[in-house]
């Protein structure tokens, strides 16, 4: 019987008849996924309850429709029958159009899926595997750092080989377009810090010294750090995504086979741009942060000139230059990390997402670590 859309087929139902030789289950109607799910529990229970003979016959004569789910159900009944004590289970009146499906189910059941599944790794094995992947990636990361350093040195020796148009484009996108967000974050940091510091300092009548705190904290620490974190979120991710997409689209391979070094072509302009703009953005961030503090101090009734004098007399060039040196290094770290993570992009739809995430995480970790190193260094140098 062929099924058409308007054929009325009743859902599956069953009846059980018994005689001394065999117990027969008559299946009627449409045995599909719904029907199989409906009878999955009940029918085997019924069969095991009514076992009076040694043979179970599944009578399929009045079955109007049988699909893959239905076939699996038939074999489920067979197994259930055998486990409830029937010596043999037969399928009777199987329509010829269903034989291919039954054969397919038989061979599929014989396939030992356990041998095909990858075996579960033990805790030690998974840790070991992760460690070895981590080591390999770290090695790759260090190799790229070497390659980038070499390319940068070559670029310094031959400034004509630098792609300046790309460099300025990146500087505009990563630097000029980031002014707004850097201003917002720095202003709020300056403002909040001033408010928090003003409360305890008011107890001693020393509100004006908030200026010293803001000045030194912004210039030495928070200006470079906030700028770097904004850039890590904004530009490291963008670099990783751009280069990662190029990797997936075979554009990096295309550059390589053209005899153009992708490191010089893609990474060097980004690093140069980032190294120029990060200190500039840091100076801007310092200024805006100090302005944020100024708002609080002036609202407490101090003239702005006192705030200015306080900062200028307290913050030294060393502090300012120390902060700038840090931001210079952060600029290199952010761009290099973003580019390397993009370069390491594997294939697959989630690959660029993974690279972007790793670019941001790695750059923030590196910023924190290097900030610590700088603090220790400056402490011993007495800066």
């Amino acid at each position: 019987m062929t099924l058409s859309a308007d054929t009325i087929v009743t859902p599956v139902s069953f009846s059980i008849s018994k005689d001394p030789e065999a117990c027969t289950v008559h299946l009627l109607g449409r045995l599909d996924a719904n029907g199989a799910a409906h009878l999955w529990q009940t029918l085997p229970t019924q069969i095991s309850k009514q076992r009076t003979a040694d043979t179970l016959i599944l009578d399929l004569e009045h079955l109007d429709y049988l699909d893959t789910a239905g076939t699996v159900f038939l074999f489920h009944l067979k197994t259930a029958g055998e486990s409830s004590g029937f010596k043999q289970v037969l399928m009777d009146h199987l329509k010829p159009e269903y034989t291919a499906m039954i054969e397919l189910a038989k061979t599929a059941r014989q396939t030992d899926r356990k041998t095909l599944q990858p075996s579960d790794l033990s805790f030690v094995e998974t840790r070991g595997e992760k460690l070895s992947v981590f080591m390999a990636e770290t090695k790759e990361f260090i190799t790229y750092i070497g390659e980038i350093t070499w390319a940068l040195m070559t670029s310094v020796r031959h400034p004509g080989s630098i792609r300046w148009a790309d460099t300025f484009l990146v500087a505009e996108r990563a630097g000029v377009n980031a002014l707004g967000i850097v201003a917002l974050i720095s202003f709020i940091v300056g403002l909040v810090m001033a408010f928090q510091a003003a409360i305890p300092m008011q107890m001693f009548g020393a509100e004006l010294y908030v200026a010293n705190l803001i000045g030194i904290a912004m210039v030495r620490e928070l200006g470079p750090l906030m700028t770097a974190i904004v850039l890590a979120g904004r530009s490291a991710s963008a670099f990783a995504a751009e280069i990662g997409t190029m990797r997936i689209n075979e554009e990096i391979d295309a550059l390589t086979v053209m005899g153009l070094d992708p490191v010089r072509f893609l990474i060097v302009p980004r690093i140069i741009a980032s190294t120029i703009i990060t200190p500039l953005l840091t100076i801007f961030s310092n200024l805006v942060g100090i302005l944020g503090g100024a708002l609080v101090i002036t609202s407490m009734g101090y003239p702005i000139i006192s705030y200015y004098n306080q900062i200028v007399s307290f913050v030294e060039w060393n502090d300012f230059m120390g902060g700038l040196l840090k931001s210079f290094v952060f600029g290199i770290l952010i761009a290099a990390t973003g580019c390397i993570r993009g370069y390491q992009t594997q294939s697959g739809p989630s690959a660029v997402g993974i690279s972007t995430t790793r670019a941001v995480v790695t750059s923030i970790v590196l910023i924190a670590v290097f900030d610590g190193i700088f603090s220790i260094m400056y402490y011993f140098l007495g800066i």
Partner: protein
Amino acid sequence: MKQHQIAIKIEDLVAGYGKTVILENLNFEVFKGEIFVIIGGSGCGKSTLLKHMIGLLPPVSGKVIILGKDLASATSTAKNSILQNIGVAFQSGALFGSMTVMENIKLPLMEFTRLPDSAIENIVQMKLQLVGLEKSAYLMPGELSGGMKKRAALARAMALDPSIIFLDEPSAGLDPVTSAELDYLIKDLASSLGITFVIVTHELASIDAISDRIIMLEKTTKGIIATGTPDQLKQDKQNPHVYNFFNRNHSNPNTDKGKK
């Protein structure tokens, strides 16, 4: 009558990634001016072999000699000068997404020649005319159809007038008419400009239409199972893999049963 000068010589090449060997014991030659086609079933290592031939993957062992120079042992400067003699069009086209078609093709010319800009633009226009994209010079790759992307990639591969061009599955994903147009274009370029083509494909119609010589790779033997002209390979009834490939036979016994 073609002169049998050697353009590419592959010597005892073992191809693979890192320590994983995909193909081994490869030895063959590609002659100047011929259209040389690499065929084989999915996953047999066609693209891997191509990557070795264009220097994207270092050989596990063996040599890839292009125009008399070994690519694997070359220093990076020497390698770049070898690479300037070849052009590659990737399966996806691999056009630089941030540049127009014109800029894509200009790039190698700007990097490797000292020609004035106007001359370069004229050259690009000629290449675009060759592939029939003269009106699309200022479009971005995202605005091109699949066939146009492949033709633009071919134009970029030809930018520096290379003597060898490698194409990775040029007709994959194209309709039969566009695919036939591309075949005609390749054939025309090979005969008019004498360019050697190395093409990876599994499109039977394409193989029939353009190839001068074919090698067939096979997964289980990890190597070349047949070499010859398309006619020779089509008549090869000894080797079941070759016979099945050219006659679109399948070897799944279950499906056979189902058909009966």
